[in-house]
């Protein structure tokens, strides 16, 4: 089946993957993987703390490699591939974070917000656009609002000057029909490109990403071996193979991306991402994958079941960046358990 559809792949191994190692990727890691991804012909290589530029913090985890070193290192080791960053207003400011990043040679800026809060991205998108770089809007935890409301938010980003909108399944909650519906709604309602970022909590990342492509998305995210938050992302080298099989052209050399994945497995990750029980639960509950580590740690401290914590966080509709609420929930559940035992 020939699609003749050009798909761009945005490789988030060195950004989403940072979640899996507590943001401890080193400059050497960045240099070696960038070389491999560049050689394979990946369109965009995204680099940085798991929560993006300026997010290194006690709240979200301190990065081993500061933003400026990470970006300078990546820039040095990418020639054909574009260097991308993930930017969340409220964490990253234009003066302190974005300006210096652009000065270091970033090509692609993806300004992200929670799916219902696109208007916080206005200034960052406008600024990036004025600097002549490629700008995308990014809508996180997109399962939390209806496709129609997602389109409303995407339209805001379009009006600010974004050249495309990526919607993310941050908690790995979607099944292919969900993705298809959203891509169709966005493609029909926008005049700019649409992209999709999958997570694999329910084992659906590849299927979801393929559904996105079939429905008209032209930018797809993936990570080597699925290296990313929680249960990981769409496995990049598998995605490339599947897209090739389906007749899409990604511009990526299969053997070289497999080499890059081997390198990632050997040097970047402590373990290859799998879907653990807690990830199944967070996917079902619709809670941000990046909560896995703090939830496991805090649940152990308070001697309660991490799965209960996830369902409670899901019930409260807690969003990414609110890791501090985990402590409060754990306290409450522990008290409830104590009362129950009395």
């Amino acid at each position: 089946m020939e699609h003749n559809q050009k798909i761009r792949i945005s490789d988030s191994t060195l950004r989403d993957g940072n979640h899996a190692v507590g943001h401890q990727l080193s400059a050497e890691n960045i240099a070696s993987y960038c070389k491999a991804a560049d050689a394979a012909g990946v369109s965009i290589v995204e680099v940085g703390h798991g929560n993006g530029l300026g997010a290194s913090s006690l709240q979200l985890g301190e990065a081993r490699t500061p933003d400026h070193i990470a970006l300078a290192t990546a820039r040095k080791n990418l020639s054909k591939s574009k260097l991308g960053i993930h930017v969340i207003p409220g964490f990253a400011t234009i003066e302190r974070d974005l300006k210096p990043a652009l000065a270091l040679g970033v090509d692609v800026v993806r300004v992200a917000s929670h799916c219902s809060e696109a208007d916080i991205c206005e200034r960052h998108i406008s600024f990036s656009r004025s600097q002549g770089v490629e700008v995308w809007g990014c809508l996180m935890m997109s399962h939390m609002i209806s496709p129609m409301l997602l389109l409303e938010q995407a339209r805001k980003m379009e009006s600010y000057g974004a050249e495309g909108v990526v919607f993310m399944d941050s908690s790995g909650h979607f099944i292919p029909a969900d993705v298809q519906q959203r891509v169709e709604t966005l493609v029909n309602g926008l005049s700019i490109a649409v992209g999709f970022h999958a997570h694999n909590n329910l084992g659906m990342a590849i299927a979801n990403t393929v559904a996105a492509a079939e429905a008209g998305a032209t930018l797809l995210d993936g990570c080597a071996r699925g290296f990313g938050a929680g249960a990981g992302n769409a496995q990049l080298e598998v995605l490339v193979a599947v897209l090739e099989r389906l007749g899409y052209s990604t511009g990526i050399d299969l053997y070289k991306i497999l080499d890059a994945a081997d390198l990632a497995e050997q040097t970047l990750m402590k373990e290859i991402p799998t879907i653990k029980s807690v990830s199944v639960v967070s996917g079902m509950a619709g809670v941000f994958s990046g909560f896995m580590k703090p939830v496991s740690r805090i649940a152990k401290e308070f001697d309660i079941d991490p799965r209960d914590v996830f369902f409670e966080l899901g019930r409260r509709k807690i969003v990414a960046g609110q890791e501090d609420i985990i402590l409060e929930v754990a306290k409450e559940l522990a008290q409830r358990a104590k009362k129950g035992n009395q």
Partner: protein
Amino acid sequence: MKLECQERTRHDCLRILDGRDKALDPLRQSELVVIGGTGFVGTWIAEMVAALNDGYQFGIKLSLISRSTDQFANRLPHLANRPDVSLIKSDVRQLGQFPANADWVIHAAANPDVRTHASNPLDTASVIVDGTMSVMRTAERLSRLQKLLYLSSGLVCGAQPVTVNGVAENAQGAHAPDACFIYPNAKRFAETLCSAARAQSRIPVLVARPFSFVGPYQSLDTPWAQTTFLSDALRGHPIRVLGDGQVVRSYLYGSDAAYWFLRILTAGQSGDVVNVGSPVGVTLQDLAIEVAKNFEPSPEILFNTAPRSAGRSAQLLPDTTHAQNEYGLSVFTPLAEAIKLTAQWHRMQSH
């Protein structure tokens, strides 16, 4: 209000609620505010709330906001004097005293009387547009608001050709920007204000598009087919149908409509648009015949042979697939029954 009339409308509500009350559970122990609460829709919602409270112990506190609270209290003391009902006299454009603890708000303030639209187009527009802006600004300050339902109009999508299917919510089309279309155009703009309020102030607002209704509490003095036919018949006159009687309308009974609105309010998602009306079309000729059936001797039906003026809508019929699929709503009171109940109620009133 005669006791038998009160019993009739109460029975109409209980009949609908039988087996369907659970769907309205989110209303239990909550505060509901209806703006424009003394009109046809507001009155039927008050009846439905009274039935929910008396028959099912829902414990709803209802506030009705309107300019005409005095007339309402005079006409309908059985509703106005209830301890669970508060009347607030206010113009929708200046919502000074507004219940701060409202959980649910229905914005139903507008005058659908086409005579007013024709004589006072600016005032008509002001109530709808300034009124909706005022409601949205006031809603920003509500701490507990769960949902706000705006009652727009089935007319916003413009004139519809005669087809078997009704107009769906996503129909394209609008009226020309002329004063004769002030009402649907103002309603259309008010829907846009709702969307803007959601975008800017995050108000959880959804829209219902009412089509035509029939039932007690609808003033027979209004220039609509269902009311003029009834009025003619009740006075013992022939039923006069303007035009050739082939215009198609549909009618949803009052208690059905109240249930539909409450169900959509509580189950709907912010951003949704839902047609509220009967999908079963009836020509005005057949409507006249149906009305005539309820009278002994049966009144004559006269057709006006003047040609139909260009631009008048030949059909006003909703496609209610969305209401059916998303909310499980359908017509509970078929038209024949609806006409019969309405005719009986008016006769009870005047005896």
